[in-house]
């Protein structure tokens, strides 16, 4: 972290970290790096994705079981509320849920359900909703069906605002605002005729803007082939710059409001999401529903149905199952040198030899003890990081207390 931000003043920038299970550790490293630059944590701005519930549901990058993972997340929320007040502690994600094959309504419902689960967990810890809710943010997918996506975002904002106010008693308008980042749907991009993806990304980006997103990630057209080349990334960037600066689409708040179709569809999606909330509550909440494989089953069924629709030509993917012109792929691809792994291993070895190993060992002992109890773990993680404990060493210590999660595979 120190190497990465060498020469960059952390009090002057904001950083978003796409990291989940080890998010608390990465945040600790950021805080300690800033500390060494002479900046106290309250000056720091940024986001950690830190959304473990969607890992069990979709992305599958978990480490510990749900309960200790939730504890770690509430620890970060609590810690940041006090010490890093400008930090966005969770990016509650629907992107991955959609990529795993859910429908738009499922993405809407499952993401918000996760959000509410975090709110409830934090409130159970004794935090006042207005102390932390303004720093919760969301991350949605933007898929092919233009109007459905716009209505999904609108429904999400409405559901969140209403519930935060009516169910959780939020008084601060910032708690009711659903801030969200959107990424265009990677899964919708094709390996065949990759240039078509530029058009797909444009429409998806536009939908996100018209739906009110605060920030946008436009995918590169070679998404289905490899990690993106410079050229592909540049086109993706230009896509959103053109939408932002040339199209006027971002100049009005909620410009499609009042459209008979958009309002009808928004209401419909809100109602369908409501039905899912009821079902999840019947199962006892998000974590019991995860253990009962509820979300995973829904997603497995939706993804199978989607594929069958494509194969029956009920759903057209241009250039893939219709209007194909077969041509060999001539898109240049990005290659990663395996030497990078060797270098990192060497660096880590050197670090472990040059740190104060007495202090390092002691901080892990303290961390383990705290993990066995119920104290907020952030200060202990921060101390371990200060003594140059690695991510692996901290996770392994926590594994000894929390165990690892094993999924009950459903398909």
């Amino acid at each position, binding site marked *: 972290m120190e190497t990465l931000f060498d020469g960059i003043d952390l009090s002057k920038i904001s950083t978003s970290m796409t990291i989940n299970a080890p998010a608390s550790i990465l945040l600790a490293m950021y805080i300690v790096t800033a500390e060494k630059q002479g900046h106290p944590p309250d000056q720091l701005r940024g986001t950690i994705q830190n959304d473990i519930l969607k890992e069990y549901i979709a*992305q*599958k*990058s978990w480490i510990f079981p749900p309960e200790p993972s939730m504890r770690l997340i509430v620890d970060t929320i609590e810690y940041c509320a006090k010490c890093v007040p400008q930090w966005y502690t969770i990016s509650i994600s629907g992107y991955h849920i959609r*990529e*795993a*094959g859910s429908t738009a309504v499922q993405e809407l419902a499952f993401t918000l359900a996760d959000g509410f689960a975090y709110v409830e967990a934090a409130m159970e810890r004794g935090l006042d909703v207005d102390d932390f809710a303004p720093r919760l943010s969301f991350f949605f997918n933007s898929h092919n069906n233009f109007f459905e996506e716009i209505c999904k975002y609108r429904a999400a904002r409405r559901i969140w605002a209403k519930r935060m106010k009516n169910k959780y008693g939020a008084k601060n308008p910032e708690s009711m605002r659903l801030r969200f980042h959107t990424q265009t749907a990677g*899964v919708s991009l*094709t*390996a*065949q005729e990759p240039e078509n993806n530029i058009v797909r990304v444009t429409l998806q980006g536009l939908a996100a803007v018209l739906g009110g997103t605060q920030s946008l990630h436009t995918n590169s057209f070679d998404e*289905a*082939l*490899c*990690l993106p080349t410079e050229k592909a990334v540049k086109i993706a960037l230009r896509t959103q710059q053109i939408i932002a600066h040339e199209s006027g689409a971002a100049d009005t708040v909620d410009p499609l409001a009042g459209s008979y179709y958009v309002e009808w569809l928004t209401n419909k999606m809100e109602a369908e999401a409501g039905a899912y909330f009821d079902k999840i509550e019947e199962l006892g909440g998000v974590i019991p529903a995860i253990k009962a494989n509820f979300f995973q089953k829904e*997603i*497995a069924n939706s*993804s*199978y149905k989607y*594929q*069958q629709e*494509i*194969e029956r030509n009920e759903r057209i*993917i241009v250039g*893939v*199952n219709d209007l194909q012109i077969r041509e*060999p*792929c001539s898109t240049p*691809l990005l290659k*990663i040198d*395996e030497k990078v792994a060797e270098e990192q291993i060497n660096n880590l070895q050197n670090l472990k030899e040059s740190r104060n190993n007495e202090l390092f060992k002691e901080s892990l002992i303290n961390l383990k003890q705290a993990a066995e109890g119920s104290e907020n773990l952030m200060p202990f993680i921060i101390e371990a990081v200060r003594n140059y404990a690695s991510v692996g060493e901290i996770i392994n210590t926590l594994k000894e207390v929390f165990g690892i999660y094993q*999924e009950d*595979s459903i*398909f």
Partner: protein
Amino acid sequence: MSKERKIKVLVCKPGLDGHDRGAKVLARALRDAGMEVIYTGLHQTPDDIVNTVIQEDPDAVMLSILSGAHNALCPVIMEKLKENGIDDVLVGVGGIIPDEDKPFLEKCGLSGFYGPGTELKKIVEFVKSNLKR
């Protein structure tokens, strides 16, 4: 009742890749085509996969790799299968496999590539028509 022989297939996710949407959809499609399917779940090491092949004796093994680690994982798996005298199993790979890597993987002994956009029925046909025993 069909007297056609039952085809047994292993669908595997080697390595750290957690993207299992395709593997699960494929497992279901193979089942719907009348095959007996074992899905190994995530995070399989090459040893895990080979040991499962030894015990389950499948007709085909379908690997799913979207993490870019195919050039590292596939040769190791094929080598271990060879060491154990397993040469009658059809091995195919899907996920994200760039065209330029296919010749190398073919040389390692893999026979089928089913990347983005491949129709499920094509994969089913591929399995049915390319069994090695």
